[in-house]
């Protein structure tokens, strides 16, 4: 970006140069040709190259990815990124928390993935991805983040692969030397499946302020927050005074939410539930009819068509859930929808709409 301050002499920026070259490559972009030389030389869509696949446990691996042009390495510790991988010719998108600490001078980012029994893509990421593969990336998202400066006392409640965003936070605290009074309660089925267990033990060695409670649920059972002997009060008596971040399976988050609400301090609990926070104004909402599945639902102007369809029980296609990958595109037969990213309205019959970033404005009929 060129600066507008008058003292500065105007200089030719790399971005500006590429923009000027647009006129030579129109209707394509210079990047479309530069990728012929190096697949990372494009900021048209964020791309990355898998540099390393580091096995963490038997079923989890850390992918070290070298992002291409346009990536700013400015994710906040705790945020997640969308990653699109071509499997069987088709890009499949999922979101994963960044486990590496943000570094402006960095050249790579790391995500840690656990292969899920039902998850075709996670299985592929952990076991089938070879270094050198080009993947698509989406900018970091999410408000499950560490404030700067961090609060003096923190509690992390973690279940399984929910450790990844927390790891990014811990690494950041470690790197900045701001590791304060922290309690980490981390549940995993077995010690072998506990991702980052050695690294956390090492952090604890170097920062005595970091208390680490490991729980192996196969032998110890599930952590009951309200249990009087081994519950939250036992492992962290001052939990009510701490800012808490919880990340893990849905039921665990539901239990935490209820527990904190009961204590009347829901504000101090931060939960990670993957969803896109969209800034722009929604429409006034409307009634959605899903023609082929015969379902109907009334939603407000903050509920995307995708979310509405899912809650109505329609098998909606979805991918990145942030308007990038087009997996969720469905034909709108009639009605108007608004794009939450820019407020654009689509009011023509039989238009294709990206359901993950649009909300209904009045009644709509969808072909699904």
């Amino acid at each position, binding site marked *: 970006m060129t600066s507008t301050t008058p003292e500065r002499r105007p200089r030719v920026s790399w971005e500006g140069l590429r923009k000027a070259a647009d*006129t*030579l490559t*129109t*209707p*394509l972009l210079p990047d*479309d*040709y530069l990728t*012929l030389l190096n697949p990372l030389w494009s900021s*048209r*869509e964020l791309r990355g190259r898998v540099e390393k696949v580091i096995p963490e446990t038997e079923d989890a691996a850390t992918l070290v990815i070298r992002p291409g042009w346009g990536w700013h390495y400015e994710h906040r510790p705790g945020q997640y990124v969308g990653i*699109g991988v*071509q499997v*069987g*010719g*088709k*890009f*499949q*998108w999922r979101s994963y928390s960044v486990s590496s600490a943000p570094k402006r001078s960095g050249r790579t980012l790391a995500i840690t993935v656990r292969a899920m029994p039902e998850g075709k893509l996670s299985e592929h990421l952990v076991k089938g991805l070879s270094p050198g593969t080009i993947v*698509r990336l989406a900018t970091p998202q999410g408000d499950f983040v560490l404030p700067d400066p961090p609060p003096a006392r923190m509690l992390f409640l973690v279940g399984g692969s929910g450790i990844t965003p927390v790891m990014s936070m811990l690494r950041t605290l470690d790197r900045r030397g701001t590791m304060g009074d922290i309690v980490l309660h981390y549940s995993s089925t077995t010690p072998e499946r506990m991702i980052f267990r050695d690294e956390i033990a090492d952090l604890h060695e170097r920062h005595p302020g970091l208390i680490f409670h490991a729980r192996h649920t196969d032998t110890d059972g599930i952590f009951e927050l309200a249990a009087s002997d081994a519950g939250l009060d036992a492992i962290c008596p001052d939990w009510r005074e701490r800012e808490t971040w919880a990340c893990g399976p849905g039921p665990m988050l539901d239990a935490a939410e209820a527990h904190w609400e009961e204590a009347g301090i829901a504000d101090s609990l931060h939960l990670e539930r993957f969803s896109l926070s969209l800034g722009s104004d929604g429409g006034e909402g409307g009634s959605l009819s899903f023609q082929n599945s015969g379902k109907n639902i009334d939603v407000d102007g903050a509920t995307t068509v995708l979310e509405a369809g899912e809650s109505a029980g329609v098998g909606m296609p979805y*991918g990145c859930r942030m308007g*990038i*990958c*087009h*997996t969720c*595109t469905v*034909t709108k037969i009639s009605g108007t929808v608004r794009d939450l990213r820019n407020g*654009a*309205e*689509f009011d*023509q*019959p*039989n*238009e*294709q*709409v990206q359901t993950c970033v649009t909300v209904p404005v009045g009644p709509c009929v969808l*072909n699904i």
Partner: protein
Amino acid sequence: MAIADVKEYCHLTPEEVEQIGAELDAIRAEIEESRGDADAAYINRVITTQRWMAAAARIGMIVSSPMDKKVRGPVLAASTVSLGLAKILENMEIGHNVMHGQWDWMNDPEIHSSTWEWDTAQPAEQWKHSHNYIHHQFTNVLGYDNDIGYGVLRMAREQKWHPVNLGQPVYNALLATLFQWGVALHDLDIEAIRKLEKDPKEMRRQLKQIVKKGRNQILKDYVLYPALSGKQWKSTLKANATANLMRNVWSYLIIFCGHFPDGALHFTEDELEDETRAEWYLRQILGTANFEGSRLLHIMSGSLGYQIEHHLFPDLPSNRYPEIAVKVRALCDKYDIPYTSGPLHQQYGQVLRVIHKLSLPNTMTEDDKPPTGVDITVEHGRRKAEERQQRRLEIGGWSRSAS
């Protein structure tokens, strides 16, 4: 003469027609299920080849400009041909097919019908409306499909003759040379503008898009690249004009062979009435013509030598049309449905004959098409048909931008 009812024309019972529809649906399902890595690799390979050809051509013209004439000549000639072929590939096998949504299944935001913009004067959005929707939905229905002569030529005996048609051989030559500009204006619906029926707001919106796109195309080919060639600007300008001409004439030729050979039939608007999906399939087969040739010829024609298969399954990947064609042909043999095909020169020969014959009134010439029944005459202009049929989804998506 035109067909008012496909069932009747093919001597098929309603049950047989439904059976044909089901068999075609099964062919579609089989291809959809088997799309995979090899198909994705195919389109990526074509795109990579095309971009290297275009880049090499542009660089060749610039780099050779200070060289000795003996070297410059051959480099310039090779660059011109390379650029022309790259434009042909981009418009036909890549652009046209991507915009039909043939590659949308890959979920690749860079090879997607909603984001693709092609290297020709017409804005992609307008193409998707005039071609994907108007032409593919209303294929060969007189008065509804604007591709029957593109509002410039009289290509069906049912279209009313006018003395202006005497100039057809000339209009045809002009259309071939300036094809990209003809296509650019196609969605405007000149006929509607002439009759003052066009919404002025919509017209301004469309014109703005066309001017912006056309200006960028001209600036690139006729100002910037010549300027980069310094003293040799003239030869680069000529080379680019030649490449555009190559693309114009070739795409014109291929497209005309799709619906104007003798075997491709026309339909009256009665056919649209309560037309089932299976009948729509039949109309596509009867209204369309293939041509034969090598694999390379087919790729360079945007796979439109498989025009019948393309019209049946506009959104299936073009590299699969050869295998689909074997099945469609067998199906047509089984039910005794005409399947029009022939060598390219024969098909184009018939096109030329139609163009010349129809420049004269019907009474002075003989019809070469097989007799099909109803004799009607249609007025000029495209009838709005949006409410006549529910839009088919396989023809490709279309969304209208705000400005």
